[in-house]
């Protein structure tokens, strides 16, 4: 598999505090890679290291199959990015702001600016200055700035932050279109796990500066034991033994005193209920549950949620 971004043993300390610890990351070409983690987990620092905004303490970064030893403008010109809150000149309009950043890359192409604004749904000839924009409009402008130069790689930090539900859905469609139709590689970080679930092809889970898991979304679906049957019974000890010995069910967990979770789905809820009833057990509750990405995240991080 060809990778657009590869990091090996990436480390970064601020003062005496390690914010990135031995992170190895692999972002496949043409895929959407979701970087999941809590606030302060080190996501933004990793993105900043990739963009050359922050110097790494150790480790290596390979972009487009080139090891980044020093500043290489040719490489960074192939990357579009938004990091943290959108950074634009508050006294300039969207068009003027994009002109300033376009000028840094070379000639100001008004058609490119118009197209980028059009893609994110912002007006071209708008007299409104940036400071008067809503958070959603600012976010859209940041995306417009990231895609204006038609980059091969996009690094987007919380791109749906501040958008309304329709805006989020539109952004999701845009990101997927950029990846699946235009072949762009996208590294994206977000707190909104439900959004990530609908968007990403690959996922990296980072916690306290460490990469806990990195795999394809498909692999993650398998790893996280997506579906299970939850039972609430009067005699959990006996039921547990019955399920193990009489029904030969292996993968059983007991999250609470009276609850049992069965991940080995060789029996459906109806059949399981009938068998338990026939064996003389009283079942208070039986249901098929979905293990959400957040549940899986909590499991990996030892109980810490995403928010």
């Amino acid at each position: 598999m060809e990778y657009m971004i590869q990091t090996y043993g990436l480390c970064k300390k601020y003062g005496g505090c390690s914010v990135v610890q031995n992170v190895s990351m692999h972002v496949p070409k043409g895929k959407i890679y979701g970087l999941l983690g809590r606030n302060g987990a080190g996501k933004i620092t990793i993105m900043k290291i990739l963009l050359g905004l922050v110097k790494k303490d150790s480790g290596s970064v390979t972009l487009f199959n080139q090891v980044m030893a020093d500043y290489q403008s040719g490489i960074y010109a192939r990357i579009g990015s938004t990091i943290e809150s959108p950074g634009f000149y508050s006294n300039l309009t969207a068009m003027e702001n994009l002109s300033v950043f376009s000028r840094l890359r070379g000639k100001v192409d008004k058609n490119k600016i118009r197209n980028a604004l059009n893609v994110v749904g912002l007006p071209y000839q708008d007299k409104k200055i940036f400071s008067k924009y809503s958070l959603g409009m600012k976010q859209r402008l940041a995306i417009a700035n990231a895609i204006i130069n038609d980059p091969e790689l996009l690094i987007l930090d919380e791109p749906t932050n501040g958008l309304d539900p329709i805006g989020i859905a539109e952004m999701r469609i845009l990101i997927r279109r950029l990846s699946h139709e235009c072949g762009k590689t996208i590294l994206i970080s977000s707190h909104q796990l439900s959004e990530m679930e609908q968007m990403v092809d690959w996922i990296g889970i980072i916690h306290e500066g460490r990469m806990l898991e990195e795999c394809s979304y498909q692999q993650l679906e398998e790893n996280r034991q997506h579906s299970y049957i939850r039972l609430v019974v009067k005699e959990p000890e006996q039921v547990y033994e019955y399920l193990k010995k009489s029904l030969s069910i292996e993968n059983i967990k007991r999250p609470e005193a009276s609850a049992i979770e069965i991940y080995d789905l060789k029996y459906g809820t109806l059949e399981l209920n009938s068998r338990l009833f026939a064996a003389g057990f009283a079942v208070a509750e039986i249901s098929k549950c979905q293990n959400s990405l957040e549940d899986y995240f909590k499991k990996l991080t030892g109980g810490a949620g995403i928010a």
Partner: protein
Amino acid sequence: MHNAVCSEIIKFRRNKMAWMGTLIIVTIPLFMIWNRLVIDPQREYMEWLMSVLMLNTLILPIVNGFVITSNMQREYQDRTIRNILTAPVSREKFMAAKLVVWFLWYLISICLLEMIVTAGCYTLFPVEFTTGNMRYALFLLIQNNFFSFIAGIPILWICVKQQALFYPSMLATLGSAVLQAAGLQVSEELILPACVCPWTAVSISGLVEVDTFYYWICLVSIFLCGLVGFMGTIISFGNQDQ
């Protein structure tokens, strides 16, 4: 580099602080012309010129410091610096472009100032308006303003170090303006240390004869200050995490 300079020019054209700064700079000679016409019609040519120089020495570094502080501080505060560096632009080129455009603004502002001073001399002192006198007056102002800019480059370094803050560079600006003004009042026994201090050297260079020992010390001190300021800026900015 050319792209970075052009981008800076786009920003500077919409920078209200820069426009305000230019307005204040051109107000100095206008005020002195009005003062000579209305309040003090008896004031003589040299006295008038020295008053212009004194005001100019005090106000110009302050305005200059305000303009570069607001320009740099905004980049950090609005976080535009990240978009600039990921555009991408090399850190050295970005800082060099800042310095170039800052100097261009300064140059335009002092050109306007010189034009008004020349027009003022022509109107107020037609007898003294000779080639020799004007050459002296313009040389004095141009040299003073140019040296003031060079000695003010370390403000850019402070702006980089302070990032989104405002006050350290403003205090440094006020300090350098006070020192430059104090340089006009230095007594003879303190002239050597005053020549070594780059900010007092700015004023002293206009008072001592060119090609004297003191003039060269002033020159070395001012340019060394500018060089250290620029190198410090480049190194600090190059090592700074954004």
